[in-house]
């Protein structure tokens, strides 16, 4: 009984720490994005609030918290209220499964990858429902686009992760990291470069980021599914998107880049390599946002069904074949 209580307290504390750290990360990810994109476009970016604009995310948060929550007249109220939460919760829960360190993983379950995939597809419900319940034509189109997009990219992503599972022989994320450490190349990126490519592209599509940001394409659908949201509920969607980015890059790091393992151990800073890798991937997300134009809805589907899925299937087949021979 003592032991169980202690376990629960430990879990809650660890969860809290993880939550605070990840929320801070999300906050400063928005800052980093604005700053980096600004520099790439020869602008300055936020520089008014605090030194070099470092307090900008906090100011934004305060502003969004204090803003009026506008509920349009004809919306489907329960669903309208619920949708941002679905989006955020499903986006953020996956973090609990990511092994940040040898000993630090909130819930080390054996179906880790499946669970992460399930949650990330569930978070599309938030978008679809918000699009539907807003009772706005633009939001509706955004919701439909999102549904189609998530469905088609989920498959490619799942298949590319399947190759990793095949190589590691486990669905437990911790085990996958260990298997990578013991493998020949130390990371799965080198043998599974195609799977990594497919995974990254579909991860960008999953997070609705440029060049696949069709559901919220601001130049066509104004803001897509969250066009009717304001204040904190809008902020929740925003948070969900950035949580999604973090989760997807964490998953990529765990499955392809060797997780927390690095060439040497850095003393006093646990999960140093994990963070470095995750930052690099997040930078990549921001980088392509600053560079690429946006796909069209049907071209996006083409890319998903005609290129990524066959590519990942072929990759899976070859991997399985090699695995069989060796």
């Amino acid at each position, binding site marked *: 009984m003592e032991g169980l209580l202690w376990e629960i307290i430990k879990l809650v504390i660890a969860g809290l720490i993880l939550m605070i750290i990840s929320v801070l990360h999300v906050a400063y990810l928005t800052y980093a994005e604005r700053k980096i994109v600004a520099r790439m476009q020869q602008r300055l970016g936020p520089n008014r609030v605090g030194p070099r604009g470092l307090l900008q995310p906090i100011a934004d948060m305060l502003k969004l918290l204090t803003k009026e929550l506008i509920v349009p007249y004809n919306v489907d109220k329960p669903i309208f209220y619920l949708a941002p939460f679905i989006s955020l919760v499903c986006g953020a829960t996956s973090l609990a499964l990511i092994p940040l360190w040898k000993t630090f993983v909130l819930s080390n379950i054996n179906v880790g990858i499946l669970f992460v995939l399930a949650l990330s597809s569930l978070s599309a419900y938030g978008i679809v429902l918000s699009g539907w319940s807003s009772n706005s034509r633009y939001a509706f189109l955004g919701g439909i686009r999102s549904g189609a997009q998530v469905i088609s990219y989920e498959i490619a992503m799942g298949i590319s992760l399947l190759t990793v599972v095949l190589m590691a022989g486990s669905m437990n994320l911790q085990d996958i990291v260990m298997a990578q450490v013991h493998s020949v190349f130390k990371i799965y990126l080198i043998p599974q470069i195609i799977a990594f490519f497919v995974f990254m592209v579909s991860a960008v599509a999953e997070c609705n980021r440029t060049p696949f940001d069709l559901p919220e*394409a601001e130049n066509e659908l104004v803001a897509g599914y969250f066009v009717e949201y304001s204040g904190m509920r809008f902020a929740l969607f925003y948070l969900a998107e950035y949580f999604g980015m973090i989760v997807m890059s964490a998953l990529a790091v765990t499955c392809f880049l060797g997780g927390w393992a690095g060439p040497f151990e850095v003393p006093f800073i646990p999960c140093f390599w994990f963070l470095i890798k995750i930052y690099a991937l997040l930078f990549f997300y921001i980088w392509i946002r600053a560079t690429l134009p946006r796909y069209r809805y049907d071209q996006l589907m083409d890319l998903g069904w005609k290129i990524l899925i066959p590519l990942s299937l072929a990759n899976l087949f070859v991997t399985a074949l090699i695995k069989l021979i060796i």
Partner: protein
Amino acid sequence: MGLAIEINKKQIDEDSWSEHFFINMGPQHPSTHGVLRIFLELDGETIINCDPIIGYLHRGVEKLAENLNYNQGIVLSDRLDYISSAANNVAFALAVERLMGLKVPRRARLLRTIVSEMARICNHLLWLATHALDIGAMTVFLYCFRDREWLLNIFERICGARLTHSYVRVGGVRLDFTSEIVDELYKFTEEFPSRILDYETLIDVNRIWLKRTKGIAVVPLEEAINLGLTGPCLRGSGIAYDVRKYRPYDAYDEVEFVVPTGKTGDTYDRYRVRMEELRQSNSIIRQCLDKLPETEGEPVIAEGAPELCMPEKMKEPVPKPHPKLGAIFKGEPKKWVPVGESFASIESPKGELSVYLVSDGSSKPWRWRIRTPSFVHVSAIPHMSKGHMIADLVAIIGTLDIVLGDSDR
């Protein structure tokens, strides 16, 4: 509110709730480039029908111009296509000059050419910026604005305003250039071609850009002529019709330049035509600058050009035969311009901008008709967008390069 009722009524009337989807794009929408409203009938995301509705920016310029005199009219022409107001000024001034038979000094003609080409670069940069942003390339937008800012600064030096220049006046221009402006322009023309490369690296061969622009809104040549498309939109379909070559005005007969054309008439071709025009404009400015020293010291306004102040009731003494005194001088209303009509068109950055003037001899035009390229281009949207998707509609609006101030007048 009225609109929602309209839409709902249409749906109820047709009794086809499951069939088509009606959406109202604009008048407030990020990528309709102003207050254009497009009423769309969609099947999924495919456009079945579309009806552009304009008039939200109608200011009655033609009516106003009938109540202002010729020099004041130039100020109105600034506000038509506010992206390239220098070109509009030229069109209006040309029409009045042709009516009056003024001979504009060579220096003024060179200056006008420089200014209208600068306006063309400004306009194409803004077009590229917004077109790229509509398709999602955010960085090109800011690079274009960076360079446009430089040109606007030069404009500020030339005439003291950045957007509504009113630099041209009937019979010439208002101010001469200074040597600093010429130096700055030289610097710009040297630097600018390398800036174009920046934009082209980002989008020119990018596969997403190609997918979004190739084969979108294809207008065959015959149809383009029938639709009345002008400027780069017409040249993208494969005809080298350019007013600067076909009916030269100002100093365009002195400079050498190529009129770029496309082949298929899709969005990508129009994009290429405009990018090429940026380079050509750059070289035209360069050539004109080289010619400027030859005309050093010439006046910039024609002899006999009307004063800025054209009072309506001014009377001129006219000799009248008198039985006893031989002749007496009687005040007659002054004839500011000859009675008649004139037509002048220029190649404005967006297309052919033509002005049709009817005068009754007073200081005010009897009728000032402006045929603006944007107006014609907006009318072409329904023909070009049928069967495409919403995302393409945004690209089509971008590629037509419309400004609603220009089309609504």
